[in-house]
């Protein structure tokens, strides 16, 4: 066990050495690759866990990178570009700034770039300028008219496309056939018919009921003694009921109260 720990430490040292050569640009020949490969071979039979084998593979990979760097190093030294870095450093220390600047100028081929505007772009720019409103107009605050909340009529809803005509008709027809089915005795309790699982759905249903009434497909009846409201389906053939309005508020509190009283159909 102890031996494996020591061996693993050795592998990590190999990895660290190779990495420092690769990252810090040190001489790759500082790494005795043959010796390190022998170390890897010696320890290979001892590895049992996946982690150990992965570390071994990493060390092998790092050593192969060093071999590549050694190859590059030899290629470079063999090329005409190779000059001894120590010699270059010494020269750089001895040369005067003016001479150094002349060295750079001799090797410098500045980039050539045109930033000239084209006639087409100029034309586009002129068009843009002509159509651009003055800054004072662009910076002006939008004037907002404050209006108090109010309800929208069905026509407005249709106009703003919140509701489509076909969709509205379809929903009203479905609700009407449901009403006829439920009102076998002639009429049905309004709250029982309107209430749904959620407040939003109940409001939507109440809205369609109101529309049904306006289309003479149903009428509302109120029991003045009990204070209960009923919906009675009509055949839709007759005239609309004489114009009378019966406000039925449907606040959230009322909805909750109606649900608690067990009116939910």
């Amino acid at each position: 066990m102890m031996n494996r720990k020591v061996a693993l430490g050795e592998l990590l040292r190999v990895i660290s050495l190779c990495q420092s050569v690769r990252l810090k640009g040190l001489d790759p020949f500082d790494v005795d690759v043959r010796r390190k490969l022998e170390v890897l071979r010696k320890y290979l039979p001892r590895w049992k866990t996946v982690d150990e084998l992965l570390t071994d593979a990493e060390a092998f990979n790092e050593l192969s990178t060093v071999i590549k760097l050694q190859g590059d190093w030899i290629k470079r030294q063999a090329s005409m570009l190779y000059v001894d870095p120590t010699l270059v450093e010494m020269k750089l220390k001895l040369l005067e700034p003016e001479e150094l600047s002349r060295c750079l100028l001799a090797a410098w081929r500045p980039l050539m770039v045109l930033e000239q505007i084209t006639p087409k772009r100029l034309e586009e720019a002129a068009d843009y300028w002509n159509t651009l409103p003055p800054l004072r107009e662009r910076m002006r605050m939008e004037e907002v008219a404050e209006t108090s909340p109010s309800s929208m009529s069905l026509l407005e809803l249709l106009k703003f496309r919140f509701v489509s005509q076909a969709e509205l008709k379809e929903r009203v027809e479905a609700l009407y056939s449901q009403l006829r089915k439920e009102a076998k005795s002639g009429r049905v309790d309004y709250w029982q018919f309107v209430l749904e699982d959620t407040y939003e759905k109940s409001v939507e249903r109440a809205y369609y009921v109101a529309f049904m009434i306006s289309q003479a497909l149903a009428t509302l009846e109120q029991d003045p003694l009990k204070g209960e409201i009923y919906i009675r389906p009509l055949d839709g053939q007759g005239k609309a009921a004489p114009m009378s309005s019966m406000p039925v508020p449907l606040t959230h509190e009322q909805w909750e109260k109606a649900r608690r009283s067990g009116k939910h159909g």
Partner: protein
Amino acid sequence: MAEEEAEFIQKVRRAVRLLLFQRHRSPGIRGWELRKSLGKDYVKILELARRQLDELGLEIRVVYEQAEEPAKPTEEQLERARFYVVAKGPISPTEAHLSGWRVDELAMLSVALAYLYSKHGKASRGEVEQLLKEKFPEWVVGMTLDRFIKRGYLSQDEQDMLYAGWKARAEIDSRTLLQQVMGKEVGLK
């Protein structure tokens, strides 16, 4: 035939415009952009553009993604490379001065690049600073190196290693720089 020739001439002109006009933040144009605009024969068109530019004292410089210039670049390497137009000959000290370069800046860039080229293209920032501090004040060295990095002449990684930047690779002939440095006679005091 005449139509084809006219089209070819048009393409050469377009190639020169593409090379010269700065369309992005950095100058030059990628190979794939040239292929997209000029067609698959873009290398041939560039060869003709090269002749046109030669008469104006300009040349096309190709900077590949990898540091080493490939002897026979592949199609993919060419498409990923950046193409620039550079001056064909060196510029005079007066021209350099007119373009806003001071002698000490030129000298510092010369030292930094020559040192990097001699060290296989990379060295730690500390080493370069140490060398520059022999002749320039410390605060000037740090500031100027940062400016070179910002202008693309040098690049620096997370390990504070310095490399020749994209602009140095496009503008500076490393071989000539080292030859110049090594060929200068030194007056020992």
